[in-house]
């Protein structure tokens, strides 16, 4: 792993490493709306069921962005790892989803 890389984990400790400093909670969030075309395709797909590819991609993109934002915040604090990461998704408005991720920024030795 390079010098700049951030260790992400959803466990409380990092196996094989020792956490020396803790900085507190960091979080990342983003709100995404799907466009009309995707909405139409999704409503068509709802008739037959199955995976909504457009939405899968959209939510994954959003999750990546939220994670990047959280990493940026942790980096500002001088952390090199984020532990105990939790994701949550909520619908804040019609047709829009919020992706939220939070964890504890720490420094491993």
């Amino acid at each position, binding site marked *: 792993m390079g010098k700049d890389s951030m260790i992400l984990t959803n466990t409380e400790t990092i196996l094989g490493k020792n956490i020396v400093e803790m900085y507190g909670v960091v979080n*990342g969030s983003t709100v995404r709306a799907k466009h009309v075309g995707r909405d139409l395709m999704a409503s068509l797909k709802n008739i037959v069921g199955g995976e909504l590819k457009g939405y899968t991609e959209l939510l994954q993109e959003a999750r990546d962005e939220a994670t990047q934002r959280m990493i940026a915040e942790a980096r500002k604090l001088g952390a090199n790892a984020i532990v105990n990461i939790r994701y949550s998704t909520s619908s804040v408005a019609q047709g829009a989803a919020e992706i939220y991720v939070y964890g504890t920024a720490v420094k491993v030795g």
Partner: protein
Amino acid sequence: MVFVPKEPPAATENVNVSPNHPLHEFLILLGGLAGVLFLVWLLLGLAVDWIVPNLDPRAESQLATIYRPLLEVGDASPTTQTGSRALQIELDQLLALQFPDKAKRPAYFVHLHSDEDVNALALPGGHILVLSGLLAQAESENELLFVLGHELGHLIHRDHLRGLGRSLVMYTLANALFGNQNFVSGMAENSLRNLQLSFSRGQESAADQLGLALLVKKYGHAGGATVFFERLAKQEKSPRFLSYLTTHPHPQERVEQLQALIQAQAYAIKPTQPLSKALKANLAASQEHNPDGQSEKD
């Protein structure tokens, strides 16, 4: 593990809020919406203009059955029926002038409807609805014939179908695209309707031209053509610049357009003929029927 306190990030360094200015996004989105609406309007116009001339007249009369009950209610009283008959004779004369070949002559119908409003409407299926308020104000036969000719122009150009088709498709499209109750869809609809107004202004002046030509064909002069709009212009209270927001052009504007046309075609202007007896009788009857209707409006 020890806890190391850290200061919260400054407001400008918040990773969870996009750094771009909200107005910037607002303008981009509004521009995008305007672009989409313009495109829809353009495509729709092309589609409707292509469909309307190819529409079967029988399909059109099918459409007309939708509001037939409404017309029958209007026709119920005997006075409006005699008026309708008198108007129908005038309309048939105009039709004969416009379509000398009897085989090609379409069947159009005119109905008198008791209503205070000074108006006449062209409806799908070849029906013209004249409101008795218009008849009450008419002073000459020439004037009335010009209005009939104008509505006939709408029917011949099939403007009524274009308008109907456009608003129907636009309404459906706005609902499908933007959701039913979204308030942006309401705004989109409104602006589409405003775009449509400029379209119908063009149609109005085309219909005016046809009405004028028919008037000259019948009487040999253009006297009385502008009387109706001149009277409307006097009654019109809204200032002229507001006319961009209404369906019809400002009456004064139309009077000027007509006068320019009369000059360009070098039509003569001669005294007008009074209303025929049958129509006058109807006028008296309709005022009796509706005593407080027109007298105070003049």
